[in-house]
């Protein structure tokens, strides 16, 4: 869903850049609470994995393909603020080094995939987790649902931006319908990959999964010296 230069007009691109800067600034503050010596290397790996996974376009029929956006995946593994920074670094490297996604569209892409993808994925994850059994094994399922929902919502958000600032005289309704329709299919792939990856990490080290905090049973908790003042 990397928006190239030219799809959206200058005012819309400036507006999304302002939103992106504000969101990333808030994430820089929030990530300080999520990252420590144990999780910081993990967060770097999650960003690199999202970059690699975004190269893996999978066919979704009709001559179209999709790839992981990774917002929900990253948020569940390393926390929502850190996930916004992961996606931002990925989108910067893609835009500046790989010419994937426009330069004037960087703010748009960070807003759509970094902010909306992560936050929708995280909020849906939290909502689904609240109604599932309080077990670590619920985490991958809730993550998959968050991943599924985040993709069409990001597609809808692009459609809204296109309705406001699209440079071509094309029906905004037609764009929104096609975008959401295709991204419901792509969202299914997003859900499967997220289920697989979060499920694998949760299976071996649930203590390193941000979204599994507070769900571990007694014997899985580590007693860390120096934790009490």
């Amino acid at each position, binding site marked *: 869903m990397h928006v190239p230069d030219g799809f959206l007009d200058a005012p819309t691109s400036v507006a999304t850049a302002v939103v992106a800067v504000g969101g990333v600034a808030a994430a820089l503050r929030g*990530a300080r609470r999520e990252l420590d010596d144990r999780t910081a290397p993990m967060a770097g790996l999650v960003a690199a994995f999202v970059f690699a996974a975004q190269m893996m376009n999978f066919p979704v029929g009709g001559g179209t393909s999709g790839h992981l956006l990774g917002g929900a995946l990253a948020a569940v593994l390393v926390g929502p603020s850190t996930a916004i920074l992961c996606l931002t670094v990925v989108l910067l490297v893609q835009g500046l080094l790989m010419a994937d996604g426009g*330069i004037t569209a960087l703010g748009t892409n960070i807003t759509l995939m970094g902010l909306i993808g992560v936050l929708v994925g995280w909020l849906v994850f939290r909502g689904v987790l609240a109604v599932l059994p309080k077990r670590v094994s619920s985490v991958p399922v809730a993550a998959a649902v968050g991943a599924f929902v985040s993709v069409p919502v990001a597609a809808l958000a692009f459609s809204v931006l296109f309705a406001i600032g*699209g440079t071509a005289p094309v029906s905004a309704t037609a764009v929104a319908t096609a975008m959401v329709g295709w991204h419901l299919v792509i969202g299914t792939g997003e859900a499967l990959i997220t289920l697989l990856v979060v499920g694998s990490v949760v299976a071996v080290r649930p203590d390193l999964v941000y979204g599994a905090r507070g769900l571990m049973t007694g014997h899985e908790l580590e007693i860390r010296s*120096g934790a009490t003042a």
Partner: protein
Amino acid sequence: MTATPETVRRRVGRRGLLLAGLVLTLLLAGVASFYASSHPDGLEFVAEKTGFSATEKDSAATDSPFADYQTAGIHDRRLGKGLAGVVGVGVVLLVGGGLFWALRRRPAAAPGAGPGPHRDPGSD
């Protein structure tokens, strides 16, 4: 006496998990990505079908040596894509990892945590 219950429960070490994730990431970006679908993605497809794909402008980064996930000067497209993928992974690791390491909570600076002399971050 072989493994105690504690060592059994140690499961996968944190470093082992990071290493496995790194190997998977490099294989995806460096090898498997060449075999990914080359169909247009959802947005490109919708832009073509609904008629706004012509408004796309070339990015100012098209002169980058790794533009479009290829490597300038490498004519073998599989090698060129693999190299671009590995370089991209490396840059994301450096920038992201550096940022996250700089932002992390340090035990001694955490409010009310004291000096925490027993903390051994490298042990797991």
